[in-house]
């Protein structure tokens, strides 16, 4: 992703109390790469773009206005980021754990065909990582999960 014109349509903006520490940690733990960091004089990050695969997140902080780190509300979070990996899910989990991620849900193959693990980061933001092992039809996924599945035109 060398060209800003090819940024993905959607990207999460994630608030951290210590954004520079968070950026370094996300590189070590999850394998993100920093493509852009915009810093103020006091260590605040007003904008950043960290890439992984064909996706990206923006780490900013310290929180302003109504924005908060999950640390402020006993781990409550209003969004979580899901990262779909091409391969190497178990190795990714081991790397994250070694860096201090709290693995909540160990890597496990799900009835809908993906292998998934979840964890929280150094400020308690929740993350999930997945890797597709088998591609199921909606009918097969519905039967496997017990949920009604409605597909749109998109």
């Amino acid at each position, binding site marked *: 992703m060398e060209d800003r014109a090819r940024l993905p349509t959607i990207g999460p903006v994630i608030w951290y109390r210590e954004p520079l520490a968070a950026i370094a940690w996300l590189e070590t733990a999850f394998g993100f790469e920093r493509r852009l960091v915009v810093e103020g004089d006091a260590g605040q990050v007003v904008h950043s773009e960290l890439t992984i695969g064909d996706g990206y997140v*923006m780490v900013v902080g310290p929180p302003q206005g109504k924005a908060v780190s999950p640390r402020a509300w006993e781990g409550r979070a209003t969004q979580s980021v*899901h990262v779909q990996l091409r391969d190497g899910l178990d190795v990714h989990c081991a790397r994250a754990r070694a860096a201090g991620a709290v693995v909540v849900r160990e890597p496990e193959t799900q009835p809908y065909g993906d292998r998934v693990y979840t964890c929280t980061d150094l400020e308690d933001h929740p993350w999930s990582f997945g890797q597709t092992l088998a591609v199921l039809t909606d009918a097969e996924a519905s039967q496997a999960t017990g949920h009604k599945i409605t597909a749109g035109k998109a």
Partner: protein
Amino acid sequence: MTDAAGQVAYSEMSFLGGSVSINPEFAAPDLIGAARMVSPAAIEGRGTQFVSVHMPDGLDAHCDRARAAGARITQAPNDEFYGERTYRAMDPEGHVWNFAQPAAAASAADMEAATGLKLSTSLKEAGHG
């Protein structure tokens, strides 16, 4: 995907090739440990993340459409120093969304001069788009 009670268990929506998943609040220690997923409406409007959406064009019309649907426009469309035209809006539960489209290109040096901020980048030439 809905459960037996007709409640959304999981969903995916797409926009220009990007996707978001819209889900109910939940607390499940076996899935997310001590974390709890909540709506901003549950914690006095606070949010731990925003969503940023980039579109190639049509930002002002998109803003009009969002306003007509009841979105609270917190920042009207404006050309920013970093080479994008943006607006920000809150949805009915207080989630903040940022929308952007390319405007006049700005170089890294231009942006530093305009803001006094330090800009470090792995790009050979920052600021296109």
